[in-house]
């Protein structure tokens, strides 16, 4: 029985795992046999009631624990994912608690929880099917167990509100009373799922499980880990990316309070101290370090710009899209519009800085880290400690922000494990200072784009050509995303643009620099929509047409983009006049399987001071699990997008990042917060992402409003670099 149960679980999840394509981690996860750790049955693996399926534990008192494989970093998945299971489980929402699925158990059980990577706005949209099936399967098993106890056909029983009812006799059994028997049954394959019109949990706003502890300070982030006898480490990296440590003189710090030791790494130095991170950090700052900066020390933002421009000017570049015949169309054009746009590097600045706590012993390695991918945390730990992954225990915690910084790149884990391994048995907490965080990030890449379009005599667009020159995030880490020299992620927004130009030609010139790139909330859908939607606005203006209606015509064949654009324009009273001096901008974008649009009202006074008055932003993500969480994500996206547009800029000088903390890498604050209205228009029929798409239309909608207000076309960001006074 146990054997067949295991097989059935495995096949259930194997199939589930294939649903979750997309961004998978780039580390090899060795499957390991139970022989390495001792066989563990499903029932033993839980600390509570019986595990009905891997995702659902039902306690004798009917309370239910639903396991969550992805990590909570503010996006609400810790609540939204259990809602998917609960919808089909047939129990009261009030009986449900969420807990993280154990990474080690996941690996022991052949990756039974699918992917644990949290990113790409994928948590809900990639797991909705297998999680709803997990809930349905558990409901069927509980019902079957009750039917068997009564000796009646399952077809005569129904489950609702944590009760199974034998309909003919009205006998009832509680979920908690049959859970142990249900757990012994085979897991049904392909259980039928409810029609969305019958949903009672999904689509209704639920209070998030993680919030009460976040207002009392009880939430334990990785940085809050406290272990007996814990030591602390602070680190200084070579300021120039790619540079190396030459020598370090620790004479001054060895006598400083609490200092235990100095640990040189290839490209960094750490100091370990007792008592407090403060001691370690004071010592790191006092070190005399000699670096070998290497050849990158000559790189600057100016030299990077030259390099991008070379890409723009290359005679030939890989073609990312080609439709019709742009050359003929340009030759016949009544009017052409040409413009070049630029966007700088950006850093994530998660409020919880990078950190990792490690307890390395001869038997096992325990790790606490703010990682968006606990499987990668385990793999990196095993590889660095040179132990079997079966000996690694990753303690899952909520993250103090992620935004893409710590999904694919968790070098802080590697560092902490290396330091801890030099002191077996001593828990070690490594924390990066904010300066290290800002200066050693994984940056939203720089991009330079030249666009050209043709209009005929009646102002109708006839051709669009684009040359992108930007840095590829994935060329170094996921070669499968590079096709014929084109980074398929970086060309999104252009190569998949829904606008119906009869002739299109697009090219992509990869320009990789020494500055480490990374996925930054919305990835290519941050700068590319700014370029595209600003340029479309330029084109509308050149055609003498109103920008909203101009887009409408070009989107005639893209009903979902058109619908969200219309919904937002309507909510924003697009046709109504505004107070003197206030102007509107509009933008539309599809991203991460969802459709978004924004209208921004802004004014610029005589001194050139910009004020954002109102932001109306809409999203159609198909189905919605937790509406209030989607709203919150879009509200947050507004701040993330506006912060980047207003202030966001990482610059390079002498090979290193010039900014270091929030005084020179500014964030929007509450005083700058405009009125935000979220238009939630879930049209059903598909599952789109919610964490990132809202960022996309912000910068272009704002810059288009600035153009309406001042006549100045903003062709580079951030806005803080521009004089917005009327020409």
């Amino acid at each position, binding site marked *: 029985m146990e054997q067949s149960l295991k097989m059935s679980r495995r096949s259930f999840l194997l199939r589930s795992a294939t649903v979750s394509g997309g961004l998978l981690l780039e580390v090899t996860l060795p499957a390991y046999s139970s022989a390495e750790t001792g066989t563990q049955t499903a029932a033993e693996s839980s600390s509570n009631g019986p595990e009905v399926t891997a995702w659902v534990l039902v306690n004798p008192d009917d309370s239910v624990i639903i396991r969550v494989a992805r990590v909570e970093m503010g996006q609400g998945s810790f609540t939204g994912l259990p809602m998917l299971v609960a919808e089909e489980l047939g129990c009261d929402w009030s009986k449900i608690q969420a807990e993280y699925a154990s990474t080690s158990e996941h690996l022991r059980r052949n990756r039974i929880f699918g992917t644990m990577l949290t990113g790409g706005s994928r948590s809900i949209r990639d797991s909705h099917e297998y999680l709803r099936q997990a809930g349905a399967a558990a409901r069927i098993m509980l019902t079957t167990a009750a039917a068997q106890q009564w000796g009646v056909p399952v077809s005569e029983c129904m489950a609702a509100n944590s009760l199974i009812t034998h309909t003919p006799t009205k006998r009832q059994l509680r979920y908690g009373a049959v859970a142990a028997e249900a757990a012994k049954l085979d897991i049904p394959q392909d259980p039928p799922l409810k029609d969305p019109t019958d949903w009672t949990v999904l689509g209704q706003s639920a209070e998030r499980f993680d919030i009460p502890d976040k207002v009392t300070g009880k939430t334990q982030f990785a*940085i809050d880990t406290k272990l007996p006898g814990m030591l602390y480490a602070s680190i200084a990296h070579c300021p120039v990316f790619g540079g190396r440590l030459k020598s370090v003189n620790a004479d001054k710090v060895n006598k400083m309070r609490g200092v235990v030791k100095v640990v040189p790494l290839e490209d960094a130095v750490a100091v370990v101290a007792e008592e407090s991170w*403060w*001691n370690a950090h004071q010592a790191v700052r006092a070190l005399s370090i000699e670096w070998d900066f290497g050849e990158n020390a000559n790189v600057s933002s100016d030299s990077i710009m030259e390099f991008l421009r070379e890409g723009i000017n290359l005679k030939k570049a890989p073609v990312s899209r080609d439709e019709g015949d742009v050359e003929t169309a340009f030759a016949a054009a009544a009017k052409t519009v040409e413009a070049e746009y630029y966007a700088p590097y950006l850093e994530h600045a998660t409020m919880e800085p990078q950190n990792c706590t490690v307890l390395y012993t001869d038997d096992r390695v325990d790790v606490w880290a703010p990682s968006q991918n606990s499987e990668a945390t385990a793999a990196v730990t095993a590889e660095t400690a040179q132990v079997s992954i079966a000996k690694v225990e990753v303690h899952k915690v909520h993250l103090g922000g992620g935004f893409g910084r710590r999904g694919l790149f968790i070098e802080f884990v590697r560092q902490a494990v290396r330091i801890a391994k030099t002191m077996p048995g001593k828990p070690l907490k490594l924390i990066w200072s904010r300066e290290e965080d800002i200066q050693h990030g994984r940056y939203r890449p720089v991009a330079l784009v030249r666009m050209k379009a043709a209009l005929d005599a009646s102002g109708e667009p006839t051709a669009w050509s684009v040359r992108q020159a930007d840095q590829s995030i994935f060329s170094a880490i996921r070669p499968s995303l590079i096709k014929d020299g084109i980074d398929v992620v970086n060309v999104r927004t252009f190569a998949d643009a829904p606008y119906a130009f009869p002739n299109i030609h697009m090219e992509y010139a990869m320009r990789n620099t020494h500055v480490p790139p990374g996925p930054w909330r919305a990835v290519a859908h941050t700068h590319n929509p700014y370029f595209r939607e600003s340029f479309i606005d330029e084109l509308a203006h050149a055609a003498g047409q109103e920008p909203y209606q101009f887009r409408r015509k070009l989107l005639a064949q893209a009903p979902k983009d058109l619908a969200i654009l219309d919904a937002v324009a309507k909510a924003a009273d697009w046709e109504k006049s505004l107070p003197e001096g206030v102007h509107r901008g509009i933008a539309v974008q599809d991203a991460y399987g969802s459709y978004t649009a924004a209208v921004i009202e802004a004014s610029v006074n005589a001194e050139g001071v910009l004020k954002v008055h109102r932001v109306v932003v809409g999203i159609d993500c198909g189905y919605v699990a937790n509406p209030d969480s989607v709203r919150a994500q879009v*509200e947050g996206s507004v701040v*993330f997008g506006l912060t980047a547009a207003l202030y966001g800029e990482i610059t390079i000088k002498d090979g290193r990042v010039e900014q270091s903390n*929030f005084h020179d890498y500014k*964030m929007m604050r509450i005083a700058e917060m405009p009125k935000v209205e979220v238009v939630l228009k879930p049209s059903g029929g598909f599952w789109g992402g919610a964490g990132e798409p809202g960022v996309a239309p912000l910068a272009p909608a704002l810059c288009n409003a600035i153009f309406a207000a001042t006549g100045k076309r903003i062709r580079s960001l951030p806005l803080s670099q521009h004089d917005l006074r009327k020409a």
Partner: protein
Amino acid sequence: MIALTVNGTKHNIDVSSDMRLLWVLRDILGLTGTKFGCGMSLCGACTVHLDGEAVRSCVMPVSVAAGKKITTIEGLSEDGSHALQKAWVEHQTPQCGYCQTGMIMSAAALLAKKPQPTDADIDESLTNICRCGTYARIRAAIHTAAKSV
């Protein structure tokens, strides 16, 4: 030894006098609800009350706090029942939540002085950074809390 009164409890601690209050709270006293965000008094994640005033503990030498009444998020209420904490839950304000304890401590100091703050008061007092962008809900929660007391 430095004498500190934190959330009504007296502690005598042996640390260097220039150690910042934040690290005394977090690493010596284990009160991790107060967060490290920037170390330069820029973000406000480390906000605590010193004799009722909101201060940024990441730049405050512990010696300056000696003899004064220190309140951290753990001491704001025993059970999350402060009007602001309840309003924060009602508005589902936190996202990642890392900055929120500092936000609540800043807001609590404001409400103690101005029980009915205007938007301008909030703008002036809450200069903390929230990277998730929860500002609209923070503002709404402060107004809700102000109505309830």
